[in-house]
């Protein structure tokens, strides 16, 4: 009970509007960067298989650089160093740019890894039937790769949500930053950071549970159909059986 005595309800209540706005901004950044990096990741993954050597090499270099350096450094570099080259980006766009670049580098590897993990025999069998490359990718490879991709992507989305807190370093007004400011003003670190803690947990935990659920579901095999692989024809096939 000691613990709860340390929380000051009036301060918590007073801080709630600003912290809550912070949470909305956190979620907004997560959604924007999520959509951007999920899409760009696909483009980069295919770009790395392109016939153009220049494109392949430069995308490869980009991925390696962003995977090999700390995100915090990438962020401050974009915000504090780019202005020396005449590129000044306000905090929020700079944060979104940094997160998107960082996560695109990881997500394209998720896509690539999942596609490469589909056994080569599948490609052989599809080609032997006479399928063209595009068809075999859409009908044979992707439906199998997606089982690895979906849980991994969800996992990265949870990471992304948490990593938005680092944007506080460049004064983006997300939840962490607002918490810091408020805590510094009131000196009540305990109440504020506990609040922030609980709010991150409240949005992060369902995400983590979703990842666990999807991973288990994907492990089960194709016979117990998962949502992502079920296609129109199975549904009709099942309908006929009934």
């Amino acid at each position, binding site marked *: 009970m000691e613990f709860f005595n340390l929380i000051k309800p009036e301060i918590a209540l007073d801080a709630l509007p600003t912290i809550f706005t912070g949470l909305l901004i956190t979620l907004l950044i997560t959604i924007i960067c999520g959509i951007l990096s999920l899409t760009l990741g696909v483009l980069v993954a295919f770009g790395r298989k392109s016939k153009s050597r220049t494109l392949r090499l430069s995308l490869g270099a980009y991925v390696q650089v962003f995977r090999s350096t700390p995100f915090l450094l990438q962020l401050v570099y974009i915000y504090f160093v780019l202005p020396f080259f005449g590129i000044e980006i306000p905090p929020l766009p700079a944060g979104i740019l940094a997160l998107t670049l960082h996560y695109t580098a990881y997500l394209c590897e998720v896509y690539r890894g999942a596609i490469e993990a589909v*056994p080569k*025999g*599948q490609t*052989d*069998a*599809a*080609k*032997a*039937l*006479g*399928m*063209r*490359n595009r*068809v075999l990718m859409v*009908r*044979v490879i992707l*439906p*199998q790769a997606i089982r690895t991709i979906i849980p991994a992507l969800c996992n990265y989305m949870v990471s992304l949500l948490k990593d938005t807190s680092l944007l506080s370093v460049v004064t983006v007004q997300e939840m962490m930053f607002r918490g810091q400011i408020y805590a510094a003003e009131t000196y009540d670190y305990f109440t504020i950071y506990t609040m922030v803690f609980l709010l991150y947990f409240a949005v992060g935990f369902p995400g983590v549970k979703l990842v666990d659920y999807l991973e288990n579901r994907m492990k089960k*095999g*194709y*016979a117990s159909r998962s949502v992502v*692989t079920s296609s129109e*024809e*199975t549904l009709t*096939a*099942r309908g006929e*059986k009934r």
Partner: protein
Amino acid sequence: MIKIDNLCKSFGRDEVLKDICLSIDKGQVLGIIGPSGSGKSTLLRCINNLEFPTSGTVRINGKLAYRDETGKAFSETEISATRSKVGMVFQHFNLFPHMTVMQNVYAGPKHVLGLSEKEFREEAIALLESVGLAEKRDQFPEQLSGGQQQRVGIARALAMKPDVMLFDEVTSALDPELVGEVLGVLRKLSEAGMTMLIVTHEMGFVRQVADRVIFMDEGRIVEENSPAEFFDNPQNERTKSFLASVLSHTD
């Protein structure tokens, strides 16, 4: 039907096929045997361009397949079209795990020929009946035994109405008691007049079903003969020692 001239294939410095010449007539069943690493599978894979030869030509129905005389590859469309007439069945089945048995059989007609499931439905069921699996049509490959999966593999290949079928050690990954059901399907196919190239270690089966046998060793065709001659009166020393060691195992 199929004519192979001076076919060579290297993986890096490793010469897997050395100057292979071979021709198969329509309706013929060719048994291909030899020790592992002798190039049997690579030879089959060159016939449907899953491997492209380093040099040499493959002709199917009298026409150059996959590449012209200079070695320049044909377009993807042409290669795919030729492949669709060459059925292949694999050692590890390679069924599409995300599709039901029925959808596996549909895969070729639907995604290569553009037929609808409705148009092909009766044929697909007939094919599955011919391999004895019609009642399994709504199951997934993972729910089937190895022998059943391999029979689906055969039905899937037959769905494209191929001119020739390539069988790449189709019983090697099966439990011994499941080998018979797959060989039974192959036998039926040969009786129906299908042109077949069968890479296998099932000597007894080759002897009964094949019209001709070739023995490969270190990338060359070492001996070629009728099954009776081949097994009873092998000429080459390498063939003799291989048959001696293999047959002593099976007895």
